């Protein structure tokens, strides 16, 4: 059977499974549509959160980021997992007790203000739309590479599948497809990683293999990697970094951004009890950790594999002839994600770091520049091919990448459509709408959101590449502090919360725009986005944590200068703190 047929089989099979689940889990009420009826088991929800959370970025891009940055990019590993500790302790149980359908609804009720709710809706939509574009575009790329269709056609196929299960089943359909998608993506990620770890270190657990001995050289694998890449002028993989303030703030921004992302928070509304919300967060992190503990091993091993492929006889010897390059390089060259230019025309592939410090060595060896450019994103997708694994593993990776992209897209689309139908239509425009009418409105909003996301995925606007800055920055600087103060302070009032959210948001966006261009329009930035220009060395990607501090400070100062919240609001805060009675608050 050809590789193409195998890929079709795996991807087609997984899609049929998702659609079958959608037909089985049709939503009959708004409660089904928004929170899956509120009866999801905490372990089931944990797996669904895992798929909801782990996007094309986690599945496809993260290992590549770590491979390129080494220790410095550990920030993604800690940042995208540490947020669950905050969710479990500071947000999820209390928001579950509150027992409504959306995140803006809590902000609107707690701060007794339609404006606060609208600010939350806008933050939610900007963060989620930015995020979803990446997922749709990622699905398109995976399709074009593995199923040999045009990426726009791939995008359409993905959109139709999401449309079927998300519009029909709402949160209920999404929950159970996400569980299936979690299984597909974790198997797809783990199998090649286990094989590669076995090949390189003899240890079947990649996370342990990372700290084991490299079979060929007898050295620890990380020492071997350090040696190989420093021979070629790159920085040591495990090297410590100087700008620790930025590293701390970036990790913190990712953590509180993770905790403040609405598509993750609403998944906690689907469990029956407050205690289940706590357990769910733990299970979610277990399921997420299965991938996140493996990713750094994949990163270092794939980078070592790439280097030994190019320099089969060691870094001191000559690299391979271009004509003898392995098949996977040829295949990825077709997509343009690997590019070779024979600068010194010797027919060999010189892969090294074109730095000033390395220039004398390069000149002595007759090298005239780095000749191989490898896109970071192909690392995970090409992994099975690099390690010579059988064809079905490649089919599995294709299905896994698509599962990661589609499951996150569906979760985001649900967050967007419920904000529109529940917070805007029912909350503001037509409060008298019937349950049936709202369910229809929810389905229509979902359908519109999918069409818009698909269009944006095919024609990505400039801001689509700024997921970390925009989605995490906004969630960290506006939503997370408002939610946390709403639970942990009885004193913060409507004026304080709104002032805090707006200044936190304005501060964060302004700092990002100064370096990345106003509204990300190229050329409108005031300062070049380089470390020398950053205030105190804080990157625009790390500013969300500072924005959160601004939000907290402004909210407290304004609240203390103005009146206390009304008694019934203080009682609402009391009631979300105590688990008993969460079942009754479901409808309203």
């Amino acid at each position, binding site marked *: 059977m050809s590789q193409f047929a195998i890929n079709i089989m795996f991807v087609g099979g997984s899609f049929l499974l998702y659609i079958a689940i959608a037909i089985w889990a049709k939503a009959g009420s708004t409660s089904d549509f928004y929170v899956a009826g509120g009866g999801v088991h905490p372990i089931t929800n944990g797996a669904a959160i895992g798929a909801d959370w782990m996007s094309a970025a986690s599945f496809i891009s993260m290992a590549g980021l770590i491979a390129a940055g080494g220790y410095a990019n550990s920030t993604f*590993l800690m940042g995208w997992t540490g947020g669950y500790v905050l969710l479990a302790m500071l947000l999820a149980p209390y928001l579950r007790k509150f027992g409504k359908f959306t995140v803006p609804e809590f902000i609107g009720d707690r701060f007794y203000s339609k404006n606060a709710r609208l600010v939350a809706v806008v933050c939610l939509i900007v963060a989620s739309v930015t995020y979803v574009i990446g997922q749709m575009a990622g699905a398109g790329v995976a399709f074009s590479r593995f199923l040999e269709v045009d990426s726009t056609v791939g995008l359409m196929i993905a959109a139709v599948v999401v449309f079927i299960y998300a519009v029909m089943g709402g949160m209920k359909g999404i929950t159970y497809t996400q569980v299936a998608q979690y299984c597909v993506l974790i198997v797809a990620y783990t199998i090649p990683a286990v094989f590669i770890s076995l090949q390189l270190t003899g240890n079947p657990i990649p996370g342990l293999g990372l*700290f084991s001995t490299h079979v060929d050289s007898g050295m620890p694998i990380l020492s071997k990697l350090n040696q190989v890449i420093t021979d070629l002028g790159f920085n040591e993989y495990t090297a410590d970094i100087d700008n620790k303030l930025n590293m701390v703030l970036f990790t913190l921004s990712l953590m509180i951004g993770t905790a403040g992302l609405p598509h993750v928070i609403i998944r906690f509304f689907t469990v029956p009890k407050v205690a289940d919300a706590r357990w769910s967060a*733990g299970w979610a992190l277990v399921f997420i*950790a299965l991938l996140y503990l493996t990713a750094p091993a994949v990163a270092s091993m794939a980078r070592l594999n790439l280097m030994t492929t190019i320099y089969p006889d060691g870094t001191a010897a000559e690299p391979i002839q271009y004509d003898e390059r392995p098949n996977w390089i040829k295949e990825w060259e077709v997509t343009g994600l690997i590019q070779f230019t024979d600068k010194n025309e010797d027919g060999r592939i010189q892969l090294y770091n074109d730095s000033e410090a390395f220039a004398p060595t390069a000149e002595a060896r007759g090298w005239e520049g780095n000749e191989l450019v490898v896109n970071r994103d192909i690392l995970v997708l090409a992994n099975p091919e690099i390690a010579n694994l059988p064809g079905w593993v490649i089919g599995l990776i294709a299905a896994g990448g698509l599962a990661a992209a589609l499951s996150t897209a569906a979760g985001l689309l649900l967050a967007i459509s419920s904000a529109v139908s529940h917070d805007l239509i029912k909350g503001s425009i037509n409060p008298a709408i019937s349950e049936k009418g709202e369910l229809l409105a929810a389905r229509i909003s979902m359908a519109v959101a999918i069409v818009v996301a698909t269009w944006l995925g095919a024609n990505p606007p400039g801001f689509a590449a700024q997921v970390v800055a925009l989605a995490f920055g906004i969630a960290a600087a506006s939503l997370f502090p408002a939610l946390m103060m709403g639970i942990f302070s009885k004193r913060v009032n409507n004026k304080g919360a709104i002032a805090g959210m707006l200044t936190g948001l304005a501060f964060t966006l302004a700092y990002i725009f100064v370096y990345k261009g106003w509204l990300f329009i190229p050329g409108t930035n005031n300062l070049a986005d380089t470390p020398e220009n950053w205030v105190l060395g804080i990157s625009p990607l790390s500013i969300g944590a500072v924005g959160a501090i601004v939000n907290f400070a402004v909210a407290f100062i304004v609240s203390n200068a103005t009146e206390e919240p009304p008694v019934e609001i203080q009682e609402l805060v009391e009631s979300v*703190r*105590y*688990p008993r009675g969460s079942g009754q608050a479901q409808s309203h």
Partner: protein
Amino acid sequence: MSAGHSYDAEAYWKANLRLIFGSLIVWALVSYGFAILLRPMLAGIPIGGTDLGFWFAQQGSILTFIALIFHYAWRMNKIDEKFGVHEE
């Protein structure tokens, strides 16, 4: 429940805050501490070709986070029961 202004409700909330505070100290210590700021101090402890700080950055902090959440969920459920605010 009657949105408790009783002694118990306050004690319950304080117990929760204490538990959160303790958990977040560990949370910050393993990630911002061992993995980032204190890494140079741990450089003397070798592990598989690198040092303990690197291990915390790429494995240890994640494992600690899992333990923290399960510990919190387990302890809070006990506290819920002790104060009688648990759900049936």
